[in-house]
């Protein structure tokens, strides 16, 4: 009977399988499929200070082994989340990571302070890397100094663990990750999407109303793996991997590269039980090898 528990700093996760922000709603849409409390955790849709309607359609389109999205961070806002979603999640014993987004340091802090008033939030994930909003988002994520600043401000504003989510579009991602570590981040999550585009040649128009959209899915995996490898070699805090993870093999691959845990994103669209499926697969793998999940971390780093 292998142990699957993983420590992310002071936070103990049941297992290394989480779901990625924006790919799992608020974790309340899965009653017909499985009990999400079984997962290591879920990351909420990105929460902003005020509700956001999001971008006009089309918001998504498919690409080879991947997809583009420009949701524009449509969300109910942190207040409604705390009132309407969190209580149920808390009851059910779901490990909730609040993914938050703002276009100013002050707003990042304001959202954090609202979350401080609640129990049942296990960690805060800073989305400083959303490619689909004009201000804030990716611009923060590309700049080590700004990322450090946001991280530090949130760090001092809360006792909760703070995770910072990296943008793959930063010219020097390792520098950004290190700046966040120095600023007190408890973990680095990588990666967010890379901006892509698609054109409908029948109509000679861009497929997405937002023009560009974030590229995700299996196609993104080799890039994400390289970045996770680079960051895990450069920081001493845990790295949580995201990017095209859809099978048990992928989980093992990212952990071998140095990830302490993973997040399942786009794969949830293909199979609502994707995270549960890879969790079961990981358990079976660990049992068959007679190892604990911890032992998989960095296995390929030699």
């Amino acid at each position, binding site marked *: 009977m292998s142990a699957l528990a993983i420590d992310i700093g002071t936070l103990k996760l049941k297992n290394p399988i989480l779901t990625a922000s924006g790919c799992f709603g608020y974790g309340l849409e899965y009653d017909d499929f499985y009990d999400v409390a079984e997962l290591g955790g879920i990351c909420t849709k990105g929460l902003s200070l005020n509700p956001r309607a999001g971008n006009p*359609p089309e918001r998504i389109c498919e690409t080879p082994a991947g997809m583009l999205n420009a949701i524009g961070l449509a969300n109910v806002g942190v207040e409604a989340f705390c009132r309407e979603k969190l209580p149920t999640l808390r009851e059910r014993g779901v490990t909730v990571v609040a993914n938050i987004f703002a276009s100013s340091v002050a707003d990042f802090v304001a959202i954090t302070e609202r979350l401080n008033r609640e129990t049942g939030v296990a960690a805060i994930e800073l989305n400083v890397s959303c490619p689909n909003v004009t201000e804030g988002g990716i611009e923060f994520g590309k700049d080590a100094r700004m990322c450090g600043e946001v991280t530090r401000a949130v760090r001092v504003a809360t006792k909760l663990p703070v995770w910072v989510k990296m943008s793959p579009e930063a010219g020097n991602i390792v520098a950004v990750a290190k700046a966040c570590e120095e600023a007190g981040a408890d973990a680095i999550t990588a990666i967010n999407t890379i901006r892509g585009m698609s054109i409908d040649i029948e109509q000679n128009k861009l497929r997405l109303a937002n023009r560009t959209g974030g590229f995700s899915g299996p196609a993104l995996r080799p890039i994400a793996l390289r970045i996770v490898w680079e960051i895990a070699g450069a920081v001493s805090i845990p790295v949580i991997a995201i990017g095209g993870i859809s099978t048990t093999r992928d989980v093992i691959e990212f952990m071998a590269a140095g990830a302490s845990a993973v997040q399942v994103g786009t794969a949830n669209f293909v199979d609502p039980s994707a995270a549960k499926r890879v969790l079961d697969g990981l358990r079976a793998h660990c049992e068959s090898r007679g190892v604990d999940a911890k032992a998989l971390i960095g296995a390929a780093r030699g």
Partner: protein
Amino acid sequence: MSSPVLPKRRLATLPLLRRESIGGLYHVLTFDDPEGSLALPGQFTMVRGAEWGDAPLLPRPMSYLTAGHTPSILIKVIGEGTLRMGRAEPGEPFALLGPLGQPWRASTPGRRAVLVGGGVGIAPLLFLARSLAGGGGKQPIAIYGGRSAKDLPLDDELATLSELHITTEDGSRGTKGRVTDVLKELLGPDQEVFTCGPDRMMAKVAELCASRDVPCEASLETPMACGYGVCLGCPVPMTDGSYLYACTQGPCVDARRVDWSRADHAPKKGVTLLRTKS
């Protein structure tokens, strides 16, 4: 979001029982579902070949044509995914997630149903017609339009279930013109309309119904990634400025709520290279 009365959703891997090629780009795919699907008319399923691998990645939303132990869908081949479906052989496993979304709302006693459809939009309307026939009420009127005679899949079955009026733009069958030309004549105050087809068609139908104050329910078509409410990829603008998420709050909605202006920039299906390798 989805009201509690709706049947439980599940992802089932089902073997293809048969594929009937019914002319042109149209096929009916029937699956073998021992557990049985409880899908209601107007609901849809996200369909993907279990052996597709990493591409095409996303499942394809398809309205149920029939439910039960042999659920079926009507497909039109327009791109990579439907091409594979239109090529599938019996025994090939498909993953079906469903039933999904809001079904057609119950028909109002005393009102005669008028089904207005175009192309593959006929699938959910046929399903509805069958259940209305079961209900024993007055036989519905159906107005079914296409560009030409070969764009009217399953018209024969529809004929057995309704007072059927056919329109074609080239006049190769039925009335020359559009479904709305016929609807204009037939539409009466004691009726209610259910429509599914190209946005531009539904927009005109909705407008006509609104002008005559006749209830109209439309089934929306928009790209979807998840089909069950988590990706937020399927918003449809409403007249009140809000977005309705077609997969969970739709696809069937009161047509009066929909901001049909989006129909203006809907795909003008014209000369197209098939969206596949060439």
